[in-house]
């Protein structure tokens, strides 16, 4: 589809590249995000990459929807798909009790053993598609087809930080205690909220992520070492 520029209130443009999620659309969004962030046209405040679109917010005293759209169109036509290797990140995960809340349910739904679900989860090629919902919730695309399960019918409350969970094609490591309808298969000691204003979060959109299996004992050591009792 042709790129759509939709005005949002008095201070943003929603730039939509496609109707549906795909690898190519994701690459195009990462490239456009980098191009805008690099050029930072006059008045731009921030760029928010998402699954099929980007939000570009601006100071209405300095620019407006029409002027910014013209500048973004120029940038878009020049935005190159870079063949740079994406940054690779490793997230450790413990799939053992008491952190494997929904592992058996996922296994049952997929007609697999719990071990086969774990292996399929470890084998996935994950990519950070976007952050959303609450601070640090990075939506990772790339869940293996054999373990794709729908969301639960009703959300479960008070799911703690560090849960590794899946729904459909996406996987997410929670950073806050929140309700969720996703299936929880493990727990991670890897910090995503880094509490550093210069580099606040572990991932950038576009990063490649792999999971590394750890034992309960290792989890407990790492969890203690990171200062989370």
């Amino acid at each position, binding site marked *: 589809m042709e790129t759509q520029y*939709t*005005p*949002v*209130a*008095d*201070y*943003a443009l*929603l730039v*939509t590249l496609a109707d*549906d*999620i795909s690898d190519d659309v994701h690459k195009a969004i990462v490239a456009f995000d980098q191009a805008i962030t690099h050029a930072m046209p006059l008045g731009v*405040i*921030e*760029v*928010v*990459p*998402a*699954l*099929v*679109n*980007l*939000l570009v*917010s601006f100071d*209405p*005293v300095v620019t*407006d*929807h*029409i002027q910014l759209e013209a500048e973004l169109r120029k940038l878009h036509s020049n935005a190159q798909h870079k063949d740079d290797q994406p940054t690779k990140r490793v997230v450790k995960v413990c799939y053992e009790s008491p952190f494997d809340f929904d592992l058996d349910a996922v296994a049952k739904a997929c007609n697999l053993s719990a071990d086969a679900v774990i292996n399929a989860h470890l084998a996935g090629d994950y990519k950070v598609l*976007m*952050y*959303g*919902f*609450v*601070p*640090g*919730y*990075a*939506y990772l695309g790339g869940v293996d087809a054999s373990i794709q399960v729908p969301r639960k019918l009703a959300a479960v409350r008070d799911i703690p930080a560090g849960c590794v969970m899946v729904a459909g094609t996406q996987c997410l490591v929670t950073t*806050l205690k*929140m309700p969720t309808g996703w299936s929880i298969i493990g727990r991670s000691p890897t910090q995503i909220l880094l*509490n550093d*204003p210069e580099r*606040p*979060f572990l991932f950038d*959109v576009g990063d490649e992520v792999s999971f590394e299996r750890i034992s309960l004992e290792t989890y407990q050591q790492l969890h203690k070492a990171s200062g989370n009792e």
Partner: protein
Amino acid sequence: MSDAILAVHFAGALVTLQDGGRVGHLRYGVAASGPMDKVAFAAANAALGNEPDKTAIEVSLGGLIVECKSGSVTLAIAGGDFMIEHAGAKTNGWVVLTLNEGERLSVRVGTEGSWAYIAFAGDVIADEWLGHTATHSTSGFGGGAIQTGQQIIVERADIREDREGQIEQPDFLPSGTRMRVVMGPQDKWFRSEAIEAFQNTRYSLTNNYDRMGVRLEGEHLALDAALSIPSEPIVRGSVQVSGEGIPTILLADHHTTGGYPKIATVISTDINVLVQKRSGHEIAFEAITPEAAISIARQFANDLDGYLAQVSIPRGNLQQRLMQQNLISGVVGFDD
């Protein structure tokens, strides 16, 4: 200048510390937070000559009662029409006063308004997250909620007699029920009856109202067909419509993405008016063009600058004010 220590005798739910907001981290799932009513917040700081985004207390309908345990500090209260009681005497909201050791201050729900701000001539000690004290209520990150029983410490607390008195209220904000919106991004997916209802019938705020958003009550807004859109960015002011057709306006601590369709977005100026309404109050959406929204934003920025500059002028110390009054009464006397 020394510290002033305030003991919190009572803090209602959702009384939080806020600075100007943590803009720029939306791409990491972080809403800007900051004050619900940006105008009243800026007025409270301006009335003390503070930087515009200095940390202040946002008081909810729950109210706040503090007692000064040691030291003295001048503070400014602005926003809505709250009832203020200072050292046993009632005063109107929108005021600068000095709280001395042993004195109590209560800021409680009045006839109008949902949020009031207490700014200080001094520095409130508050935790920062990503360089800001603004409280993100969902996570508790930032300065955090004020709790009954805690202490609030104001460092370098100053007494500014020259700033005491009433704060002029802004007169450039829209009044009444009108809430101006730019339609979209997903307005075209709604049935024409839904667009008609959205623009021509009134909606009222429900008590499902917090720093994340406010759910509305009114005609349901039906989609043309079941719509499944990939999750996309949400902004402060997005009017998101649930599967049942119920609209919710997202506010300061909004989720940053969502898959529900957004029928329209409230313009930034009018959010300051919207948030001061209460459960049961009616609003009427008025669709305007993006061009009109831009010119309103520019006029508003101009009006706000002028207003804050006016509010930030000290009135002079007691002696100077008495002299001014003498001069005025002298003039009146002469005319007699």
